[in-house]
Structure formats: C-alpha cells, structure tokens
C-alpha cells in the first residue's frame, strides 16, 4: 500500500460540474464465501438455518423494493417469489439430506436451474439475479455481511471498483462524492451520479490507494481527485462568453419521445439532430398500425424546435429487442443484426416506418431528414437512400458509426445529402471496446487521439464528397469538444437537451478560424488526457 501525500493528484473521467470535499469511505471488497462443505449431522437444524436465511434475504428484497419505488418494486417482488419458491426449497432440502450444509445446499439447488433455463435470454437474466440472492443466503448463514454499510451522516466520498444498481440504491445523503476505479463515462455509476448531481470521478485506477479517513477533493471538471485538496483548488468550468448571436455551426437537440420534443422546443436548439424512433416501438407488443405510427410522428414533429428534424430509423438489436419483431439471441449483440441490418428479415417494417413518417411530414409541413443506423458499406447506404427517396420527400443520410463506412464516404458523392456521426458507437467499434464493459472506460473517452483523427477524416471526406456532416453522439454535448468538432469541419452538432444552451454558448464564443486552431491542437495530441487539457488551455486563452 502506497501512502498518498497531501496534494497528490489522481486522474480519471469527471462527472458533473461542481467540486466537493469529503472524507474517503472505501467500500470493502466482498469477503469470499466458504467453499462447499458437509454438515455435522443435524439435517433438521440445517433446514431451519436455511429457512431463516431465506427469510432474511427476502426481507432485504422488501427493503430494496421500498427504496426503488413503484416501477422497480415489481422486479423485487418477482425475485422474492423465486427466492421463496417451494420447488427450489425442496431441492435444497434434498441436498441437505444427502449431507451438504444449508449454504452449500441452496447454492447447489440454484445452480441446478442452469440445466433447465440455459439458452433462454429472459430467464438467464433472472437466474443471474437468483444466483446473487443465493450468495446472499450463503453469506447470511456464514455471518458475512454483504451490504455497503454506508454512513448516514457526515460528508463522505465513497470509493469502490464500480457500483451496480443494487449498490447505488443504497447511497445515503452522506454520500457527497463518488470515485470508481473502473467504469466509464456511460457506466451506471456515471449516469446515476449525473442525474443526482453527485460529483464523481470514474475510471480512476490510482484510487486503489485511497484509504478511509483521508480528506479528498473530487474535482470533476479537472477530471481529478486531489488528496487533501480544498474548494479553492477546484477547476472552474470554462465560461464561454458569446461574441455573436448565432453559433458558428447549428446546434440541434437529441430527442426520443413527444415529451423530449416539447422540452427541446423550450431550448434555443436549431431543429432536431437525432430523433431516436425505437422508443415508439419498444413498448408495443404488436406492430403498431401505420395510422398510429403516423399520428405519433406527427405529434412529435409538430412539437419539435424550429429547424430541420433528423429522424433515425429504428436502431434495435437483440440486446434491446422490439417485442413484435423476431430477433434471435446473439452471442455479440453489438456486432450482430441491428439497425439497418434488420432489413434482412424486416424490410416491410422499415418501409412502413418511412411511409408513416411521410404522412406525418406532409401533415405538419416540417422539413424532415431521415438516416439509417449501423451502416457498414456504401451499397447499404445506397440501398437505404433509394428506399427512403421512394418512400417520401426527405433529405437522406446515414449514421457513421462503423470505421468501415468512414473509409467509404468518397463513394457516396451524389448519393447522400448528409451523414451524422454517432461517436459512442464509433468509439466502441474503432477501439474494439465494449460500451457495456466497466473496465474499458478509458478507451471510450472521446478525447482519444485516434477518435479525434478519425473524426477529421470523416469531416474532410464528407466535405469533398459534397455531403453535409454532423455529430450527434454524447461527445457533441461537451461544449469544448463541440468547438473541436466545428474546427474539424463538421457542419452541425446535436446535443442532449440539457446541454444545448452550453454548447451554443461555446460555439458562439469562438470564430470558425479559432475553432480550427483548437482542432489543430487536438489533432497534435498523443494521449486522451493531453488532448483534453491542451484544448482546454487553448480555449482558456481565447476566452
């Protein structure tokens, strides 16, 4: 164990805008459970022990259910039913009678379900949950505590590997800051901390050396934790002062529902740069009729902020399946039949979507652009363009998320009106780094030089091919990164609703020439950290 001197700086990825000081509270690594063992001969006693332990864990599920509120309560209720299942208990009793102790018997009983439920995705998930509960039952029997045991008063910065939904549900008011060793900008911890305005630093490997009792400053804007630091050391977010009325490139908003559309119209967004249509379908059990689809689209188009509306055709896959379309289980859903690839089996669905949207477009008189996600070849892009032009009076484009299509943009001159880059997926595919893997956050950092350079290729190839280019990924919601994007030559950005104002200010505070200088600084960097800090320095001199 290294002792960290006061003033030591640990770096990671910041979440939030405000710095906070607190005392380190390390979440203990979970104690290992004892291995399988026989009991001493008192089978009746073991049965009672097991019954008591199951009852205890059921009580814990009740607590979680109350904390989680109405929507998630049903999940905990269903899990409790499985935990207390009579068949499962009988199976465990049989194991106790054959000599295993209560803890081993219950784990063996739950493991025996593997054979029954293997290969069925919906049940496998429950099985994972049930196995976690079996470990809790075993832990209770062995006297091992598995909760986070967070303090309820005081000001603590909690430090751990990464936090699951069951963990974050236990955060108390005393949790003022969070530091995770693993995790990335889109990890569960980051999302929860962002929504609850808890300053956090994720993906900080050096945090393993933080110990209980240390005072630290979590400084998310500076992407760091300062040991012994105080509020005076907090990095200030650059405050951009708008120098012109309009940003150097249009800033649009990302939406996914009618509510989003209404909210986006209250911002200064210039139209919608990404309308995710899958939300309209994920909750339907049967294919919505064309009239219903057209009605939903018309409502959303009507409410949207003034300007063009870029609609993305359905972006679903076996990891977020549309209930009424057949999407078989896949080993690697991120690399599977998703987005435009669904056309293989569901061509008519896509045509219906485009035709319903056309009805809505005519009814509302709005300017609608359509684009398809998950395009890998020029021929796929051309196939979509022909389909879309045959279905309605649209400007037609594609998402650029695969490195393959980024290398084929020159072939699309005269075929497409626009492209839009989804930086989250482009990072995932460029770095071969699973977005869902908590250990790979550093590779998914948008400031990675390889991503910035790939973006430059995309912007310049698009320009040469006479195709308008935009970015609608998470990175476009970062004001500093948006300046880099404008400087690289992108013609628009689309940000999450809450970030439209901040991104507009940044893009109104610089000239196009200045943005180009900043982009040069970004392109010269060789590490993600250096890229971000060099860009922030350059912007600070301009401001």
């Amino acid at each position, binding site marked *: 164990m290294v002792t960290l001197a006061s003033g030591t700086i640990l770096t990671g990825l910041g979440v939030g805008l405000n710095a906070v000081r607190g005392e380190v509270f390390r979440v203990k690594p979970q104690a290992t459970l004892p291995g399988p063992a026989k009991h001493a001969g008192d089978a009746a006693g073991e049965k009672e022990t097991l019954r008591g332990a199951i009852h205890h864990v059921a009580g814990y599920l009740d607590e979680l259910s109350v904390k989680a509120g109405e929507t998630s309560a*049903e*999940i905990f*209720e*269903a*899990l*409790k*039913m*499985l935990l207390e*299942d*009579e*068949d*499962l208990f009988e199976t465990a009793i049989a194991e106790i009678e054959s000599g295993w102790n209560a803890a081993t018997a219950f784990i063996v009983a739950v493991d025996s*379900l593997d054979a*029954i*439920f293997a290969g*069925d995705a*919906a*049940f496998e998930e*429950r099985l994972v949950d049930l196995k976690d509960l079996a470990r809790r039952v075993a832990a209770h029997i062995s006297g091992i505590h598995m909760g986070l045991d967070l303090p309820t008063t005081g000001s603590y910065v909690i430090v751990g590997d990464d936090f699951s939904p069951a963990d974050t549900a236990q955060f108390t008011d005393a949790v003022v800051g969070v530091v995770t060793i693993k995790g990335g900008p889109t990890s569960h911890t980051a999302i929860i901390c962002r929504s609850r305005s808890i300053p956090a630093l994720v993906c900080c490997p050096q945090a393993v050396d933080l110990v209980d009792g240390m005072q630290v400053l979590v400084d998310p804007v500076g992407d760091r934790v300062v040991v012994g630091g105080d509020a005076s050391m907090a990095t200030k977010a650059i405050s951009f002062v708008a120098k012109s009325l309009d940003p150097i490139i249009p800033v649009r908003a990302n939406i996914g529902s009618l509510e989003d559309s209404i909210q986006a119209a209250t911002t200064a967004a210039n139209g919608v740069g990404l309308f995710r249509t899958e939300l309209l379908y994920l909750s339907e*059990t049967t294919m919505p009729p064309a009239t219903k689809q057209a009605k939903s689209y018309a409502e959303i188009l009507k409410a949207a902020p003034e300007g063009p509306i870029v609609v993305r055709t359905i972006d679903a896959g076996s990891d977020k399946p549309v*209930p*009424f379309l057949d999407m078989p289980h896949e080993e690697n859903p991120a690399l599977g039949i998703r987005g435009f690839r669904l056309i293989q089996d569901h061509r008519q669905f896509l045509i219906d979507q485009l035709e319903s949207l056309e009805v809505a477009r005519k009814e509302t008189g709005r300017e609608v652009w359509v684009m398809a996600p998950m395009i890998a070849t020029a021929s796929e892009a051309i196939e979509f363009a022909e389909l879309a032009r045959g279905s309605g009076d649209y400007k037609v484009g594609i998402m650029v998320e695969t490195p393959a299509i980024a290398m084929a943009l020159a072939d699309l001159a005269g075929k497409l009106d626009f492209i839009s880059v989804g930086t989250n997926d482009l990072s995932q595919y460029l770095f071969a780094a699973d977005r869902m893997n908590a250990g790979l956050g550093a590779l998914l950092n948008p400031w990675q030089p390889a991503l910035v350079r790939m973006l430059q290729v995309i912007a310049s190839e698009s320009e040469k091919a006479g195709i308008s280019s935009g970015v609608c990924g998470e990175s476009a919601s970062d004001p500093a990164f948006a300046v880099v994007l404008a400087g690289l030559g992108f013609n628009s950005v689309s940000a999450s609703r809450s970030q439209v104002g901040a991104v507009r200010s940044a893009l109104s505070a610089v000239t196009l020439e200045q943005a180009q200088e900043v982009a040069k600084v970004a392109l010269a960097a060789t590490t993600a950290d250096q890229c971000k800090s060099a860009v922030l320095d350059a912007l600070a001199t301009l401001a």
Partner: protein
Amino acid sequence: MITTTVTIEDPIGLHARPAGQIVKLVKESGLTVRMGKAGEDLVLANSPLRMMALKAKTGEQMVVEVETDDQAVADALFAQIKDFLKG
C-alpha cells in the same frame, strides 16, 4: 374441476413476473390450480420456477385447471390469470 384455455400475450412469454403473480394469486385463493401447455402434462401452479420451466412462449395456449365446482370462483381466477399473461 373447471378447465379453460388461455393464450400468452406477454412478449417475453411466461417469465418471472407473470409466473410470480399467478403463484401469489393461487396461494392467496387457497385453491389447487394446475397449468400446462395445451397437449402436455399439467403442473401444480404453486412454484414460479416450475411454471417458468414450462418455457411457454408468446402466442402459446395454456390449459388452466382449478379444483372447484363454483363456476364464478373459477371465472374470476381465470380472468386474473389472463390479465397477468398480457404482459
């Protein structure tokens, strides 16, 4: 003994939530209820795991059998089970 047939409309099939809801209902009713896929053996509907192990999918027909002679009691039970299987 009163029997009916219901269709699973839940898009995920007979998964944990409906299985749990049915078992809870059956236990609260105090009745003996058996369920199974049409044409297959029926199982006692008092264990959600046993019900999930039937692996009944969306669109499949399920036979529900309740040990009672009271048609009104059976109908009320069937209506709730149907509702649980809607998803």
